[in-house]
């Protein structure tokens, strides 16, 4: 059987947050999107380490923004999901739905 890369749990959250935020995705809105949907505090450091890993896998690309005074003269790094990243998210969704389907504990909307 061919080996297929599958994004891990937090990687999938970051990829989905990237899709939700869109063109203006950088560390702050990505963390906010994950915090809002999960209800948990997110370490920005873990978001960046995950983005580095996703970029190394070719699932995410980045570009440097302009430095701003509000950020102490530091530039934002904007991220966007690549075509390969989108394929992985779709594949992960299909796999999860297939696994969920027919699990008695989740039938009728209660867990």
């Amino acid at each position, binding site marked *: 059987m061919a080996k297929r890369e599958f994004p891990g749990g937090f990687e999938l959250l970051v990829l989905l947050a990237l899709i939700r935020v869109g063109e203006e995705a950088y560390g702050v809105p990505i963390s906010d999107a994950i915090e809002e949907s999960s209800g948990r505090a997110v370490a920005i*450091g*873990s978001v960046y380490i995950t983005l580095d890993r996703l970029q190394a896998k070719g699932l995410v690309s980045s570009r440097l923004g302009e430095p701003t005074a509000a950020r102490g003269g530091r530039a934002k790094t904007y991220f966007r999901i690549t075509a390969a990243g989108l394929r992985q998210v779709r594949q992960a969704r299909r796999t999860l739905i297939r696994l969920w389907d027919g699990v008695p504990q989740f039938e009728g909307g209660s867990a």
Partner: protein
Amino acid sequence: MSSSKPPRLAQWLLERGISGPQREALVGDMLEQYQRGRSAAWYWRQTVSAIAISFTAEISQHKALAAAVTVLGLYLPDIYMFSRVWVWVARFDHLWYRPLINSRWHWMVTDPWAYRLKPYLWTSEIASCAVPAVVSWILTRLYPRQTGLVLTLLVITQVGQRLPYVRSATEDWIRDPGNPIWLFGLLWFSAITFVAIPASILFAGAAGGRRARLSTD
């Protein structure tokens, strides 16, 4: 509402404790979040977790460098204890001691309280801070992109090796808590171990890393 500037020590540690291509972006994001009203406690939590996450990632990416710095850090006291450096340090200690014992300042060596200050050993204590600081400066000049990894490992190894002294001083104090000399000993060893040595390593490393970055720009 937070003040516009985050805790200075946390920001200083954050800027030097993390490595990698996204360091500037991460520091900027945290500043932006803080100015949006996050608390100082939030900033500290994020700083500590960012340093820990970056450190773990750096170790897995630079295993050879991490192993080399750990071994160097562990054997550093042995290297300078058994080298000519230590002989020269001991000579300086002796130079301190003689004039002290023969002067009106002799109480600094003979008085039980002042004796705990060990003035004739100050050169040694300074050396125990200076030698790791020099190593830190050299290593961060050689590996400016791995400053966080190098500094964290040096601090852990140097502080770790001083812990037996602190434990021994703590045991003395617990055995005889009424005697303030033991409390003084505990404070002395704790100050050297947890403040003076880490500060020497971090400041020298920050200077070395900055110099290396300037020379490559």
